[in-house]
Each structure stands twice: as C-alpha cells, then as structure tokens.
C-alpha cells in the first residue's frame, strides 16, 4: 500500500481524499495555489506545498508543479480528484515516467476516452449502443449534410475533444446544419485547440443516466448501479440521484452488463463513469466515459455502502477490489444537490466571505464541503461550495429529507442557489420523477414567464 499520497486538487474533493487516506493510515500531501493558503485541505494534510499563483493554469493545472511537489515530498502516488489534471493522459504518462502512481486508469485508456469520436467507435465494437451518426471526424460541410440526411434531423454536432457543452450545436434542417457545423468547429478550436467535430442523432428530451464502474488490475470490473443526472443547466449537473426513477430492474441489469463488458474490453482499471442518454422508449445510447472520480460519486456510496475513493486507492496499489458484483446491494434512494456560490436568478458567480455557514444533521444527511464560517470563496475556481446529499428509504423520503435539509441550511455573506434547488424540488414533474435534460430549460422559461407576469400585474 502507498505510504504517502499527494492530492492534486483543492476544495471538498481534496478533503474527501484526505478522509479516505486517514482512514487507511496513508500520509497526505496537499498542494495549493496562493489563493488557497488558508484552505482546510492545507490545514488537514500531513504536508503541504504551495505550487503557484492563483490562476489554475500556473498551479493546479501545471504538470511540472504538481510532479515536482510529489518529488520533493517523496509521495508515491497522486490522486487527481475531478477536474484539473484528472483526465490528462499526459499527466498520467509523466507520473508513469517518474515512477509515481497516478490514481486513475492507464494513460492509454484516458487518451482513448478523451477522443470522443474514437471512444464511440471502440464502444460500438464492444457492443455498446451508440447514437446513429458519423464514423469519426466529419471533415466537410458536404459530408455533414450527407450524414444528417442518412440519420435524419435533428442532429447534434459535437467536438471530439468536447466537454461542458462547448463546441456543441443542434441542427434541425440542412440550412441550420451548414451554419451550426462552422460554429461548432470554431468553438471547438477556440476551446480545445482542435476543430474536429462529429455528428450524432439528436434526442428530444432524453434522460442523462450514468453507470459507476470500478475495475482492478486483476481483470475484475464491477458496476455500482446508475445515477440519474438529468437536472442540468448548460450541461452543468445540478441534482443527481440513484437509482433512476426510469430504470426497471431488467434495464439496470442489461445496462450494467453492457458497461462491465465494455470496460473489460478496454482493460479498464480504477473508477470510471459511463454516460448514456436514455430516450422515452427506454433505449439507451453511449455518450462518453469519464475516466476519473465523479463529483456525484457520494450518491452511489450512499446506496451501495462502497467507499469509492478507498477502492480507487486500493486498486491503484495493485490490490484486488474488496468485493464482487454479487455482493453489491442497493438500499434506498440517494440524492445530491450541488450548492453553488451564485445568484439563484442570474447564475452570476457570487464569490466573497461566508459569514455564517451551518448545515443540519439528522439521519441520512451527508455534506461534503470545504466551506466554513468566515471562509473566503475565491473567484478563481469553480463556484461549487458544498454537496448536500441525502439518503432515504425511497425517493419520496429522499426528497422530503433534502427539502428539510436545504430549508434549514444557513449560508450568509454570499448568494447561493439553495432557493433554486428548493423550487426544483417542489416542481410536480420533479416529484413525479418525470426528468429529462430539457427539464431545466422548461423550468427556467416557466419561472421567467412567471416573473414577467408578476411584473405585468
């Protein structure tokens, strides 16, 4: 087992990794930018190294800075958390070259899954349903028009290097397609430095369903069931839950076995998430694989009792997974609300000092956060300040528990989206489990219409 792990991240996920390491008796090294000197992850790591100025590109995203910090502290492994360098194949390769274990899949797998068009091809070969679309990169407008004609409109144009909704465009007609194709290429080039795009069939109101997997270096891959993350705004997840109200036991087993087979086909080791779209007829289509720990992993931990971060560390150290697929059980229903430092109406970020920060306890509540009273939420990084998770006997109890938890949450000094979450949780469609990735758009439009009406009266 590792003796010392460097955590190449900040905020709540850095603390989450410290929790796991302390429970396993492993020493930790925190790295931090100058903006994070007073952060809890620095306070609670055994050692800490300042690696650069506030801008992430020169600190948390700097491979040399992180690797040097690992070298000077003698860390034998690096946990990248999520975001930052967690899906950098280059980072994983440099770790390999420096004989530091990267706690994540092999660089080969990261690189493969990072190329969305190639991943799609490989997954289709492994028997995973993918949306009808182009075979890899679409080179020209003519080719795009031909493919769209074959698969039928609407279609989605996506950057092969994509993520977060950038370089993504919908087209409902040939006329729109020409325009959208060029826009997507431009956006892709601006955002990722590569203009390559591909084309897929566009689904109207699909659900976002993802499967959590864990693989070890002894050929074992298990899945920990699904999470439904359909409540998104501009491809940013807001609420995640497990199980999905849309999956029958039969569909869960089918998707689970497809996912496990596909992961075995690419010799997947460590934690990963297979993302799918599920249409209204119960058909599922592969979107992408996230080759890292996910923000919303806690939801799965609550229903399965598996500590995903500890398993990541164990398998990275060469150990076998501590359980078999047949030992995985699903109990009750879990849900997560991402609390962001932002205005609940305009979504403008709201950095600043939190003067009061108090979250309730009680049965079935878990809060992962690096925030506390009198802490500064810096403008340099992500606006997520806390993950409020609840677990109940069923979905209804989970929703009731989430509501009382958010109602009794006190965060003062900055604006947060707590009130937005409470409005979503009160929506009839949400309560009934009628979710889709179109939910938030409809919700925002209805809210805006309500406001306009109220102003008119």
């Amino acid at each position, binding site marked *: 087992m590792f003796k010392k792990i460097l955590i190449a991240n900040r905020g709540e996920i850095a603390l989450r990794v410290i929790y796991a390491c302390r429970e396993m008796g492993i020493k930790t090294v925190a790295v931090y930018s100058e903006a994070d000197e*007073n952060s809890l992850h620095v306070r609670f790591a055994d050692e800490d*190294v*300042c690696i650069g100025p506030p801008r992430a590109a020169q*600190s948390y995203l700097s491979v040399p800075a992180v690797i*040097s910090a690992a070298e*000077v502290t003698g860390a034998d492994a690096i946990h990248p958390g999520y975001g930052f360098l967690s899906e950098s194949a280059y980072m994983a390769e440099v770790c390999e070259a420096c004989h530091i274990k990267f706690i994540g899949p092999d660089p080969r797998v990261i690189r493969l899954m990072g190329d969305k068009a190639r991943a799609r091809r490989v997954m289709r070969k492994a028997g995973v349903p993918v949306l009808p679309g182009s075979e890899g990169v679409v080179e020209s407008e003519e080719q795009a028009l031909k493919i769209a004609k074959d698969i039928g409109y609407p279609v989605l144009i996506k950057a092969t290097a994509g993520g977060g909704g950038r370089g993504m465009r919908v087209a409902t007609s040939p006329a729109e397609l020409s325009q959208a194709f060029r826009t997507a290429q431009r956006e892709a080039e601006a955002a990722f430095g590569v203009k390559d795009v591909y084309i897929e069939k566009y689904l109207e109101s699909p659900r976002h369903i993802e499967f959590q997997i864990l693989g070890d270096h002894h050929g074992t891959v298990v899945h920990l069931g699904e999470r439904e993350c359909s409540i998104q705004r501009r491809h940013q997840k807001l609420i995640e839950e497990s199980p999905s109200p849309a999956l029958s036991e039969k569909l869960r087993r089918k998707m689970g076995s497809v996912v496990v087979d596909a992961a075995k086909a690419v010799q997947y080791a460590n934690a990963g998430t297979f993302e799918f779209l599920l249409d209204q007829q119960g058909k599922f289509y592969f979107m992408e694989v996230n080759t890292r720990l996910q923000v919303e992993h806690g939801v799965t931990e609550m229903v399965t009792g598996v500590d995903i971060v500890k398993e990541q560390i164990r398998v990275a150290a060469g150990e076998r997974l501590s359980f078999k697929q047949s030992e995985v059980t699903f109990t009750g229903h879990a849900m997560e609300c991402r609390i962001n430092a932002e205005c609940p109406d305009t979504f403008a970020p709201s950095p600043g000092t939190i003067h009061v920060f108090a979250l309730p306890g009680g049965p079935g509540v878990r809060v992962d956060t690096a925030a506390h009273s009198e802490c500064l939420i810096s403008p340099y990084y992500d606006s997520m300040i806390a993950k409020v998770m609840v677990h109940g006997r069923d979905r209804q109890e989970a929703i009731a528990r989430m509501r009382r938890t958010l109602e009794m949450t006190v965060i003062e000094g900055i604006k947060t989206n707590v009130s937005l979450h409470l409005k979503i949780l009160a929506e009839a469609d949400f309560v009934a489990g009628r979710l889709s990735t179109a939910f938030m758009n409809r919700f925002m439009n209805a809210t805006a219409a309500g406001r306009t009406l109220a102003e008119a009266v």
Partner: protein
Amino acid sequence: MINVDELRQVLDLARDHELTELEIENEGFKIRIRKGGQVIVQQAPVPASAAATPTRVALAAPPAGSAPDPAPAIDVDMELAIVTAPIVGTFYRAPDPNAPAFVQPGDSVKKGQTLCIIEAMKMMNNIESEYEGTLAKVFVEDGQPVQYGERLFAIKRA
C-alpha cells in the same frame, strides 16, 4: 488585505498578554498597536517585483508562541529586493556538488546572473537575478526543497 478576525485575535492576544505596544511585520503586512492611544493598521508598501507571500490565517487562533518569527524581518526602507522561487523543486546553490556556490553574501550581483538552480522533474532550472546589487542573505540551505513563492535571496539594490 486585512483579515479582521486575525486582527481581533491579535488584539485579544495583546490584551491577554497585557502588552502596551505590539508591532508585527511580515513581508508587506504590518500591524502596529499601541494601547492607551490608537490602533494603527497599515499595509506597508513592498517592492513590486517581490512576490508577497500571503500570511497564513489558520482557523485556529495561533498559539502565542507561534507568532510570526521576527528573526528574518525585512526592513522595507532598506530597499531589499526578495528573490522568491518561481517553481517548486530542489534548491541548489552550485552547478554541481564540488563547485563553489553561484553567489555568496557580500558578492555583487548583476541582472541576469544565475543565483541558483531549482531542480524540478529532473530538469535543472537556472534562476537568474532580476536585480542589480549586493547579495544580502540566502534563506534556504543547499539541497533543500522549496515551494512556489518561497524566499530564496535578499539583494540590497544598487
């Protein structure tokens, strides 16, 4: 930036220890308190070129004993320039173990002159002076790890 909590802790400490005067100075940050008179809090100007290391404000009130170490205090008025580590790595004062140090206290230093090496990812990075002057102090021992922004040298500017 002034951290009000920190200031309060400082004032509490000053009261608890029945101080009549207290002065804390730490790289561009300065607090002076006089009891019976006024409380003066000011941020002293620092040379723009030196990276100011922020003061760590722990959640815990610092124990009285761990107050900022006054030993390597930098007198801003003396026009000392501070060279800080631009990268994380291992600090070497000489090009190889048997060679003499690049610079010694008292040596005159030119702009662009190599002051030390920081080894990072097996690469030897020459750290050059941005200042002209006389080397006043070396803060780090040869072969020690340094983090970003850590003070390496003080140069009395010409």
